[in-house]
């Protein structure tokens, strides 16, 4: 019995050592989509230069982007979004800093999807609010494809919509984040 206890301890130690050595995964080309329901016209913006970092050892994660890099199909909409709603000159960055709670379920040696639970702080328009939801990490060939989708009430982030168009723009924004993460290597 004693030897069993020791071997469990040994295994646990070995496990933690492996976890501590686990590399960080990152992407400089994370894709973020911002969408709101609208009766008149679909409001949709995309960026493909978000940075995404996940630490497989600790579960720490961070997504950061520059709000000005959101592209709209309509140039006028992009102008209004930047100047009137999101005020991107005053608040150029948006980020999510948090933790994946069940990071231990992610096993690099086992290809396939893993549903993860995350929690943290989302900053947008200079306002920081807690956010928690589920995401999916697809492990494959030593890479991780991350996918997350969540809704945020625009009101919470002090984004005000002019009364004139209030009825045409949804009160919630749907945010979608996709990234193909590679192991972080210091030398290039």
């Amino acid at each position, binding site marked *: 019995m004693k030897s069993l206890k020791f071997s469990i301890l040994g295994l646990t130690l070995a496990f933690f050592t492996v976890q501590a050595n686990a590399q960080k995964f990152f992407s400089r080309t994370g894709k973020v989509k911002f969408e709101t329901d609208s009766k008149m016209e679909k409001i949709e913006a995309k960026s493909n230069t978000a940075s995404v970092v996940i630490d497989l050892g600790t579960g720490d994660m961070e997504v950061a982007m520059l709000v000005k890099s959101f592209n709209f199909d309509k140039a*006028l909409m992009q102008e209004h979004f930047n100047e009137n709603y999101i005020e991107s000159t005053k608040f150029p960055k948006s980020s999510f800093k948090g933790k994946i709670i069940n990071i231990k379920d992610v096993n690099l040696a086992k290809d396939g999807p893993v549903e993860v639970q995350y929690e943290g702080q989302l900053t947008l328009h200079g306002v920081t609010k807690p956010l928690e939801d589920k995401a999916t990490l697809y492990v494959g060939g030593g890479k991780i494809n991350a996918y997350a989708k969540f809704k945020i009430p625009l009101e919470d982030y002090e984004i005000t919509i002019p009364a004139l168009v209030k009825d045409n723009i949804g009160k919630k924004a749907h945010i979608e984040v996709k990234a193909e993460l590679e192991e972080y290597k210091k030398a290039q």
Partner: protein
Amino acid sequence: MKRILIAILILALIGGAIAYRMWNKPHENIAETKSVATVTSSDLFKSYSADEKSANEKYMAKVITVSGKVAESKVEEGKTVVTLQTEDPIGTVVCSLDPYSKQEKTSFAVGDQVSFKGICNGFLSDVIVDRCVLVK
């Protein structure tokens, strides 16, 4: 009376046409826009890592030309992103090719010396330049 009605109708048509054109206004043509600064990827990264605020005042939301060696060229979902090496071991300049411009080249070899014109949008852990077009 009839004349006034016709005049109003013409004014309404002109107004409508202007509104329609404004609504469908095209994106700024990067290839035809003059860049306000020409800088190497190393110098651009250095200005940002030294003082982000003053670098933003100089470059943010402006059309600039940045040149450097390709660290990586990636196509994801039909969009090309090229990262340029800098003297910093980790930092890069991330250049995202413009989806609204015609791109002659969408794949670049690592180590190639290239020059892109695009809109500098600021700094994360890398400098981000979006809507890039290749400069010959």
